[in-house]
């Protein structure tokens, strides 16, 4: 299958390994990955901070860039959530009904990584190898906006060598919330503290999730604590093999 | 000067504008009837289970033994010298030595230890008994002030679900839905049974 990668702005600028892992994983499974290089950002941060007017050109740009593709994947629950649930809303708020309809079309063809693998490609065992103790944090938008359910866990359970441990209070938000982490830094930090305690209680070597943004929050906190637990995106674990270990 | 009513209604009309023309269809795909018939053994068992869960006591009886059962329940619950109140329409042979409500004031009601009434209907799924002020139940205050409420529920009055319960009631009457004795969870979410309403609820369930 020919799959267009929406790597997300955060993935492009700060976490390129997530995009690389997504490419290698999909290619290993025999699919063709293309990277429409005019892509930028879904505009979620703008929308969620109240700047829908500023988000409109980003929505238009995103729709134009990805409209030609039948299948689009992004390694991010919240960016897919934005494309699927916010883009049409932004367009309608500005009276752009045609753009809204086009955005809905793109949204319907855009998948979060675990959705693409399980629902579209029909694969739960991607042939990965990752001999580490891992705990999985289901990010809020993948859980409650996209309803990915246990798809990421089904993928992880099939990874050879993995010691997958359940995260207590897994469905609790990590406290990131985009600009919430800056505007309400104290509350965000209190939420992060509880999330980190739960992660550390599992004695996992790696905390994983489907969103680089939430991992930036959890990983930033763990790094500050010098806790020794590292964060890796789901794509990086699934891309890992005996030959190339993440 | 425009009245508050006219102004508020005007504001509502202005706020709704065109949007009121969009009809909303209410999907009623929820259960409106139970899986078991009213008064069936399964429904009675469920009611008892729920009432006991609320810390009410349940006493089963046949209608032939009803008066005796009511007296036994009262005898076990009444404090020394405690007086019993009944509504005017309760069969007099149930509690022969009880006082009949004559519209006593609240402090007088407070002098009674217990009240015995019938009920209008009950829902098993939620353990709810409905009172509607009929002659065998009386006005609302008499089932409120005395500390013990003995309530007679007949099998035919027991339905399974909340929709079936409401369908049996007249919304123009003053209704009281009772689900166990009064309770509070206001202190550390810990449930305490018995606050201002009757602290003891005893249900006499007539099974035939």
């Amino acid at each position: 299958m020919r799959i267009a990668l929406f790597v997300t702005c955060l993935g492009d600028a700060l976490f390129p390994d997530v995009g690389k892992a997504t490419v290698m994983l999909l290619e290993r499974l025999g699919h063709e990955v293309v990277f429409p290089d005019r892509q930028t950002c879904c505009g979620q941060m703008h929308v969620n901070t109240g700047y829908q007017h500023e988000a409109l050109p980003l929505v238009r740009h995103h729709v134009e860039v990805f409209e030609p593709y039948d299948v689009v994947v992004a390694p991010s629950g919240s960016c897919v959530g934005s494309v699927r649930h916010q883009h049409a809303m932004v367009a309608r708020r500005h009276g752009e009904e045609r753009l809204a309809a086009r955005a809905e079309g793109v949204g319907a063809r855009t998948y979060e990584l675990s959705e693409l693998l399980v629902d579209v490609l029909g694969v739960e065992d991607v042939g990965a190898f990752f001999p580490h103790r891992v705990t999985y944090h289901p990010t809020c938008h993948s859980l409650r906006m996209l309803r990915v359910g246990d798809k990421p866990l089904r993928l992880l359970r099939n990874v050879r060598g993995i010691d997958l441990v359940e995260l207590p209070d897994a469905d609790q938000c990590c406290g990131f919330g985009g600009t919430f982490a800056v505007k309400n830094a104290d509350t965000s930090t209190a939420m992060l503290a509880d999330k980190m305690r739960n992660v550390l209680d599992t004695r996992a070597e790696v905390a994983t999730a489907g969103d680089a943004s939430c991992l930036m929050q959890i990983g930033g906190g763990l790094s500050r604590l010098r806790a020794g637990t590292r964060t890796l995106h789901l794509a990086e674990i699934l891309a890992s093999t005996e030959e190339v270990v993440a | 000067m425009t009245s508050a009513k006219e102004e508020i209604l005007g504001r509502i009309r202005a706020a709704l504008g065109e949007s009121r023309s969009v009809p909303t269809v209410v999907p009623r795909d929820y259960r409106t009837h139970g899986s078991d018939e009213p008064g069936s053994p399964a429904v009675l068992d469920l009611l008892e289970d729920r009432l006991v869960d609320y810390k009410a006591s349940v006493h089963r009886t046949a209608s032939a033994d009803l008066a005796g059962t009511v007296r036994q329940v009262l005898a076990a619950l009444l404090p020394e010298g405690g007086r019993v109140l009944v509504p005017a329409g309760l069969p007099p042979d149930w509690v022969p030595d009880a006082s009949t409500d004559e519209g006593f004031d609240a402090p007088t009601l407070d002098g009674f230890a217990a009240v015995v009434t019938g009920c209008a209907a009950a829902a098993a799924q939620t353990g709810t008994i409905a009172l509607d002020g009929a002659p065998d139940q009386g006005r609302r205050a008499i089932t409120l002030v005395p500390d013990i409420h003995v309530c007679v529920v007949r099998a035919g009055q027991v339905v399974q679900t909340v929709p079936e319960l409401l369908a049996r009631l007249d919304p123009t009457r003053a209704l009281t839905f009772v689900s166990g004795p009064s309770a509070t969870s206001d202190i550390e979410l810990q449930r305490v049974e018995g606050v201002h309403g009757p602290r003891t609820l005893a249900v006499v369930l007539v099974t035939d």
Partner: protein
Amino acid sequence: MSGIFLGMPVHAPRGVGALRGAEPFPVAARTALANTQLRRNLGHATATIRAKRAAVVSELDDWEELRRAGEAIKTATMTRLDEHLEQLERAFTARGGTVHWARDANEANEVVTRLVQATGEREVVKVKSMATQEIGLNEALEAVGIAAYETDLAELIVQLGHDTPSHILVPAIHRNRSEIREIFLREMAGVDPMLTDEPRMLAMAARAHLRRKFLSAKVGISGANFAVAQTGTLVVLESEGNGRMCLTLPQTLITVMGIEKLVPTWTDLEVFLQLLPRSSTGERMNPYTSTWAGRHEGDGPRDVHLVLVDNGRTATLADEIGRQVLNCIKCSACMNVCPVYERTGGHAYGSVYPGPIGAVLSPQLTGIEDNASLPYASTLCGACFDACPVRIDIPSVLVHLRAKHVEQQREDHRLPSAEALSMAAASWVMSTSTRFSAAEKASRIGRLLGARRGRITMLPPPFSGWSASRDVPLPPRESFREWWAGRGGATS
């Protein structure tokens, strides 16, 4: 012209009631977060009630169908709200009740004060009511020398503790048993000095304290959970029996209710009597529900009033996206699942309506400029929507109110804030990949700034809040798009 002008929806007025906090949310939250006792109390309480709710909700296999019906009934009610209100008034009046209308908190307080004064009484007993807290009724009555006694145990704790409620359902959720014992010992006249902190003992102390008040009360004041338009039936759900006392024993009953609390028919109530108890207290049914339709001869109060209050509700109704918030049945399930509320508690929201629902209701009632920080007091995690028994899409309304706030500032021609400038700049940069790519290269300057061993530990304001507790990842040597280009991969 004047008719159109008079019909314009108006926000709740300033200077009265409890819809506005003294501090913005982040500042108020800081105080709450520093209180470790408060956080322990809240964490325990919300976790307990979450588990109870989950257990009783899972018992019903038609829960989702009930939610959808509840949502649709409320939505339909709002589109015909004027007609339903007039129908309610007719039905309630036909049965001997009196209906009053109040444009705002001040008018509602005036109406109630006048009604109480007409009885000649100086004391009233109250059932817990959000509407009367919202309008500041107790303060208004106090100002003319009328004492209002709260009778709900938690409200009593709040009132005796000279405190404010922090939760819709469990207003004293921020207090633990030993704090409550201290309040009772200090404030409750004639209380047993040997009072322990066992919840049962504390509840019995409240029973004894209030018993005499109930038996002698001449005026009761309540709110209403629902009003059935077709039959003129008012409905109050409660647990302790204090509600029944206030609704039944006094000669005069005054009920204060927001105009949105209607359901069209008695049958509609079958949905909400299932949704509300399970969502709020986590019970299959609350111990007591009372209904009355006007006056009932020989049973209960002789003089029965209903005060219908707007106080910003029509302004909320005017917003096509925001109006769904009026569907709220005040169950408080959203508070109990909210990770922000669980950390900060209710006081940080400044309004009598805290938590997620408060963050979307208070700014709409007051106008967004008076509660501008509330729509941002959420990570948009979505737990509130899943818990909401009438499926209010709180995250979407939060996002909508944020947009409305920004749009309003723009219209007001305020000088653009640093945030607005950076958002505009980011939009400009990110609307073409050339600019974005250039910005990525520029950000690598960060590699030279304060970076030690692969992490950045300090950022300038406004991002210092981030770096106070978290490291920042160092921008990589190579962006994804550079890696892709170097690899010679397909780009279209």
